[in-house]
């Protein structure tokens, strides 16, 4: 086939690079980026050498710093001589620069020791390598030897390392606590023999801030285990902490009282076997700074030990340095030589004042001071040396401190006061003799028998077990969550209950409840005749409203004014002389009645009566009677009202007061006043007559008639009034009904009551439950 046959499709012409080649470009970019990131995240590889690879796994075992993974074991191999295992650890780059000379590594595995359990988490997750280093960068190092034990003190912990030196290692082990007044302030980090093997050195670490108590005057002593010592002061038993029983321990005290400066790290201390030794050594001064004296006591010095105190007037001024014998071969005399060391500091003469001390003692001896043996402890027979004054004793010859060549000066001694010794012993024995020992023993035997009986009884034998069981059960109970929660929940329950009871809703509910009950009673009373009662209630409400109308008040006021005016009128002088005036009045009345104007009066009267009758008819038409009956019923309800009762009481009170008033003197004058009133009336009538009363009376009757008409008109509106009253009553009824079930207030009250009831029931149930199952309170349901 020739090329011309190939179809050619015209295109944009020219071959262009396809966009699809962007994809591999991006892919390459991504791959390069990943490569770069991987390289960047790659930390250096360090080698850590271990005795064994216990539990380590390639690619899994982590290197942790402060419990954060900072690397991973990539490879585990042997050292060239197969003596050690080398773990190659890939570090994370951010910590790599800190891993320098000061870095230490160790394997963390579960460990149970006297001092506690550590590394429990490694039981599940496997061992890991813990590293520790400081935060300073100082030259990278890539090969390390792992510690065989985790370091006891965290790297960089503030404190001070010092050395203790002792004759034997004793029971002071690595990890043993260093105590200061019984508080652990450090620990023993290492112990080793000195190079010459003559002593044991302990490296200890004391945490800050207690390390500032390490001064040149600080003394350390061994606290290991139990110490029983019987010395001049009696028996003493020391038991340190349980841990120190097993691991040992050392304690220290700064005998300078904080005055001395702290020592530099690495300072070497002596470790004394006991606290007494340590404290006694505090009195030790350098050989050149103490005054040595020889004393030759007569007789036995049995009981005088090296280290026994030397006292002067009860103050310890030194100690017995050595006890030895001195034989004078020529004279065949055996003498005991006691060398005592006097500390000038204790005499208050300042450090190193040996000569001054000797001069002081010279003068003291000249005054009759001698060395003497004295009993320090009756029980053990221990002796001490004391300086006593014998100047007043008879036969005391003068003596001096004898200077001897090549030996300490000789201090003169005096006889031991055996009388005193014997006397005190004798007295003690006599006192013992006088004791009613026979009776005491008899009683003691009886007591022991009783005790035996009690102790031998089965009940007592079982008691410990039961007590143990009870304690265990109690422990369980006390440790159970429910008990821990119970007080809190009880408190919360009580608090909630109190809140509920004290809440305003309850208070208001109580008030509302009372009101509700009162209304309910009222409603019940009115319900006897529902419609009537309702209407009556409405009527009364309206009536009361009407009575409270301001118009009525003004009416009353004007009435009062009228009465006042009438009184003034009646008390006018014209009303004097009653009988005569009365007669005159009657006469004038007669005249008035006979007056021609009065003839019109009956007609007017009749008209008045007619209108009155029409009023009554209107009332009748308006079913007034029924209304009035209902009003009466309501009135009865109203009368039941406590307020009314109170009103009645007040009325009674008022009546009583009135009676009291009537009983007053002024009442006696009443007849006179009445007479005067009649006089006044007569005068009035006279005046009336004079004023030609007839037409005016007719006018008055006309106006009465008019008034009656208006009253009639008013009463014609009565049905409307009653209707509106009924309306009001219905509204009141609605209001009362609103107190019924369903209203919000009522609902709240009911809810509150129900809640209280529920709470009460719950408490009752709880009480019943606890009564049935007392342990339910503890164990929960």
């Amino acid at each position, binding site marked *: *086939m020739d090329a011309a*046959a*190939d*179809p*050619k*499709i*015209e*295109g*944009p012409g020219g071959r262009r*690079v*396809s966009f*699809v*080649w962007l*994809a*591999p470009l*991006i*892919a*390459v970019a*991504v*791959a390069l980026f*990943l490569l770069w990131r991987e390289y960047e995240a790659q930390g250096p590889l360090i080698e850590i050498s271990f005795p064994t690879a216990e539990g380590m796994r390639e*690619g*899994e075992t982590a290197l942790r710093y402060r419990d954060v993974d900072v690397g991973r074991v990539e490879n585990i191999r042997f050292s060239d001589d197969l003596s050690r295992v080398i773990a190659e650890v890939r570090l994370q780059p951010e910590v790599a620069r800190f891993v320098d000379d000061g870095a230490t590594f160790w394997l963390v595995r579960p460990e149970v020791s006297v001092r506690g359990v550590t590394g429990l988490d490694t039981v*599940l*997750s*496997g061992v890991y390598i813990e590293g520790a280093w400081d935060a300073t960068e100082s030259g990278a190092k890539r090969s390390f030897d792992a510690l065989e034990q985790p370091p006891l003190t965290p790297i960089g912990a503030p404190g001070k390392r010092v050395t203790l030196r002792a004759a034997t290692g004793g029971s002071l082990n690595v990890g043993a606590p260093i105590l200061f007044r019984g508080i652990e302030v450090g620990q023993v980090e290492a112990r080793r023999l000195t190079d010459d093997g003559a002593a044991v050195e302990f490296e200890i670490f004391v945490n800050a801030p207690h390390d500032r108590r390490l001064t040149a005057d600080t003394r350390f002593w061994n606290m290991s285990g139990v110490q029983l010592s019987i010395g001049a002061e009696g028996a003493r038993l020391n038991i340190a902490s349980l841990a120190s029983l097993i691991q040992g321990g050392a304690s220290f005290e700064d005998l300078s009282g904080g005055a001395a400066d702290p020592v530099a790290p690495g300072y070497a201390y002596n470790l004394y076997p006991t606290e007494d030794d340590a404290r006694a050594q505090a009195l030790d001064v350098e050989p050149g700074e103490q005054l040595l004296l020889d004393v030759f006591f007569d007789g036995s010095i049995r009981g005088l030990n090296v280290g026994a105190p030397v006292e002067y007037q009860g103050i310890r001024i030194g100690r017995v340095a050595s006890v030895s014998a001195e034989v004078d071969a020529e004279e065949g005399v055996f003498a005991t030589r006691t060398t005592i060391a006097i500390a000038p500091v204790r005499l208050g003469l300042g450090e190193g004042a040996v000569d001054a001390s000797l001069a002081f003692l010279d003068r003291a001896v000249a005054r009759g001071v001698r060395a003497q043996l004295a009993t320090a402890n009756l029980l053990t027979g221990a002796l001490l040396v004391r300086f006593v004054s014998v100047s007043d004793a008879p036969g005391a010859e003068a003596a001096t401190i004898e200077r001897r060549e090549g030996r300490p000066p000789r201090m003169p001694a005096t006889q031991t006061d055996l009388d005193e010794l014997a006397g005190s012993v004798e007295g003690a024995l006599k006192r013992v003799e006088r004791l009613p020992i026979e009776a005491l023993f008899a009683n003691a035997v009886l007591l022991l028998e009783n005790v035996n009986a009690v102790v031998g009884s089965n009940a007592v034998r079982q008691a410990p077990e039961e007590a143990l069981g009870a304690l265990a059960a109690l422990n369980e109970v006390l440790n159970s969550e429910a008990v821990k929660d119970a007080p809190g929940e009880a408190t919360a329950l009580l608090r909630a209950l109190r809140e509920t009871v004290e809440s305003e809703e309850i208070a208001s509910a109580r008030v509302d409840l009372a009101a509700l009950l009162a209304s309910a009673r009222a409603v019940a009373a009115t319900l006897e005749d529902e419609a009537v009662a309702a209407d009556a209630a409405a009527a009364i409400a309206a009536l009361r409203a009407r009575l409270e109308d301001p118009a009525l008040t003004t009416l009353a006021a004007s009435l009062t004014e009228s009465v006042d005016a009438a009184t003034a009128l009646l008390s006018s002088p014209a009303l004097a002389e009653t009988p005569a005036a009365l007669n005159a009045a009657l006469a004038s009345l007669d005249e008035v009645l006979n007056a021609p104007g009065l003839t019109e009066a009956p007609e007017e009267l009749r008209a008045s009566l007619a209108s009155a009758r029409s009023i009554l008819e209107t009332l009748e038409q308006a079913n007034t009677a029924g209304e009035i009956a209902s009003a009466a019923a309501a009135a009865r309800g109203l009368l039941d009202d406590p307020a009314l009762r109170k009103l009645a009481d007040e009325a009674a009170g008022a009546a009583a007061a009135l009676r009291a008033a009537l009983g007053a003197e002024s009442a006696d004058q009443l007849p006179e006043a009445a007479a005067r009133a009649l006089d006044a009336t007569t005068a009035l009538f006279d005046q009336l007559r004079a004023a030609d009363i007839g037409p005016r009376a007719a006018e008055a009757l006309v106006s009465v008639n008019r008034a009656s008409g208006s009253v009639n008109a008013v009463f014609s509106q009565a049905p409307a009034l009653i209707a509106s009253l009924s309306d009001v009553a219905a509204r009141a009824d609605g209001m009362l009904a609103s107190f019924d079930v369903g209203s919000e207030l009522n609902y709240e009250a009911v809810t509150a009551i129900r809640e209280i009831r529920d709470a009460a029931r719950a408490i009752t149930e709880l009480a019943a439950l606890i009564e049935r199952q007392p342990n339910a309170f503890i164990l929960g349901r």
Partner: protein
Amino acid sequence: MTAAIRSARAVGYIGCDACGRAVRAPRSRCPRCGARLAPDGRRSLDAVWAWLFVGIVFYIPANLYPMLYSTQLGRRSESTIIGGAFELIELGSIGVALIVLIASVAIPVAKFAAIIWLALATRRPAKDPRRALHLYEVVEFIGRWSMIDVFVVAILAALVQIGFLASLSPGPAAAFFAISVAATMLSARAFDPRLIWDGVGAK
């Protein structure tokens, strides 16, 4: 092959990729569906090579990075595709290991090889065009099944989440592997099987 084979191209027609209509050359668009026709009647091999390259590039990290992180009782371990397969063999699950090896190693590598071979083979008239076509169809079909490893990881990671006791989470290799497979599939799709037949009849 017999000389009886005459391709459409030989008689001046171009098949539309979209609707299949044979279009008389020269034209740049299909008169029926309006799809763009390849400039010289054939899709270029550029896309094939490009996607193949992407697939191979991402196949490398897919095998180097861990496919699966597993945590058992606080112990975290990671496994790559091949490392995981060998672990399975050590545990005795040879069957599963074979499936993993075939799906994740053998098939992708074979696909790379097949696409390269096809792309190179079209430069000269094929000796056995039917076999080449068959190979292409197999590659097309098997493409989607290469994702089986990714599916397994996704499902396991969702299922095994028992907190401290055991949990699995996918590693970065899963994403790389998925990209690699997708790129290979695109590469296979971009291959124009008609290229196989070009020149066959020209003998």
